[in-house]
């Protein structure tokens, strides 16, 4: 049984993304999988706490299925992919939420030439969201 404690996304390095599909369909110990992926064992155990698939045997030893783990790594990569569509007026990309949000309390300040800087708050997390815009008009400011 997997023990999912925290299913939030993990930051996976490019090296791991390349190496993970090479994992074999067998049960690994955390140390073995950490060696094969060339990551510290503590990082791997952190991923297990973030919901990476694993099971424990009767002696409470952790076992990780290589193929299941590779699939989880692939899901993590897909989950972190940024949305492909263009930002619309009044929208910005929140680096905390990793998503496009409607900027609240936006202020436009001219930078140079046609370039302006839109700064506001994320409605979800309250973090600051910045966006550079060309030819800024009043339509760039979110309504309300």
């Amino acid at each position: 049984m997997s023990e999912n404690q925290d299913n939030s996304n993990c930051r996976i390095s490019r090296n791991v993304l390349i190496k993970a599909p090479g994992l074999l369909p067998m049960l690994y110990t955390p140390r073995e999988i950490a060696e094969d992926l060339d990551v510290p064992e503590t990082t791997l155990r952190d991923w297990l706490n973030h919901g990476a698939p694993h099971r424990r045997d009767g002696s409470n030893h952790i076992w990780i299925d290589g193929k299941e783990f590779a699939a989880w790594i692939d899901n993590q990569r897909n989950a972190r992919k940024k949305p492909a569509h263009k930002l619309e007026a009044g929208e910005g990309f929140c680096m905390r939420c990793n998503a496009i949000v409607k900027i609240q309390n936006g202020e436009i300040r001219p930078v140079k030439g046609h370039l302006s800087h839109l700064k506001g708050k994320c409605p979800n997390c309250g973090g600051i969201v910045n966006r550079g815009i060309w030819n800024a008009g009043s339509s760039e400011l979110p309504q309300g």
Partner: protein
Amino acid sequence: MLDRQNYLKVKLFLTYSRKVHERSLLQISTDFEHLKILLVWAGSQPLGSMHAFNNNLSDFLSQKVEKGLDQADVQSILKTNRRFLLWGKAMFPVEFQNIQLNWIMKITAISERKEVII
């Protein structure tokens, strides 16, 4: 599921190659990729009984190996596997007792005689 004991033997061989033969990390990494094919071929069966497997390694390679591999790569894979098996026979004489030296030496000879089409 693959046999874990086979995997552990391969890891032991790689450690031996690194420490005794002083092979570089890049060579070790390449060897591991080559030996993964042997592990997949053996599946859940122990390597000690590989002489009794129905299809031979070069046939397996011709079926399973990714496209784009040329004859030199196949030869390299077979040579790595032959080195591993010779080491295994020396290190685990009881377990590998049924595997004859002729059979191991034949691994590369098979692919030389027969064209491997990938």
